[in-house]
């Protein structure tokens, strides 16, 4: 992925508008939409659990489309 700034304070929306990404941020500021990018991938794979030990509150961006392999969701 190009222009990825790991461990830097970024504008979250710069990543949230990208289709098909899963990104994890710490130090999320909801008002200013900023955070420190800690992890980014193009799929929902195992995010390092160590992030949980280091940072108590995280912010996740997930623009990966809903699964098209599930034709319908019936859930009660």
């Amino acid at each position, binding site marked *: 992925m190009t222009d990825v700034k790991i461990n830097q304070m970024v504008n*979250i*929306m710069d990543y*949230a*508008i990208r289709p098909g990404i*899963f990104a*994890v941020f710490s130090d*999320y500021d*909801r008002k200013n*939409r900023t955070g420190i990018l800690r992890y980014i*991938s193009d799929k*929902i*794979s*195992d*995010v390092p*659990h160590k*992030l*949980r030990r280091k940072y*108590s*509150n*995280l*912010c*996740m*961006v*997930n*623009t*990966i*489309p*809903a*699964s*098209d392999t*599930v*034709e*319908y*969701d*019936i*859930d*009660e």
Partner: protein
Amino acid sequence: MSDFLLLKAKEIQLPNGDISRSFETYADFSILGDDFVNNVVKIDTGCGLSTFPYYRLTGDAKLCKEQKRKDIENSVIYTYSYGVETGGRKHLPSLTKRFKLKNEAIKFKHSLDYLEIAGYDIGSRDVYVNYDRRGNILIGMDILSQFETYMGGSIIENGYVMISCLKKQPDKRSFYEAVRDHFGMVKSL
């Protein structure tokens, strides 16, 4: 921030020529101490209780196990699902903690501190969190029934749209204007 919810159905052309349509969009919310920005959610009128698969939210399998164990230990309110991911089978009630831990259809009630769907503020809501499934985040009838909703082919843009507004919203002028514009319908008050 929007005064109402306007969604256009996503269309997928299948190899057999059929067109599959569904409403999916982006949502911002906060649950279990984390924030989620622009997470894809699916509108599902066939779903009675909105369900959030925790693995889809966090991508952390170990966290899912830990949080499920916590919910069981803390006697968090729960219920069971049945559906596509369990082959349509109903699950037997899990009576012991061990069986609850193994049961993949069990889901636990938690609060969203806030929920915004496609820029429309829904407020704080209770939803159910499943720690084993990896499917879609489903916005179900527990939330959808709080809306006044119109659906149909739009006369001003190509596609099938859904326009919704919370029933309790005091000012619905923008919503009714959108309904008039997209469907040619006027509500008599």
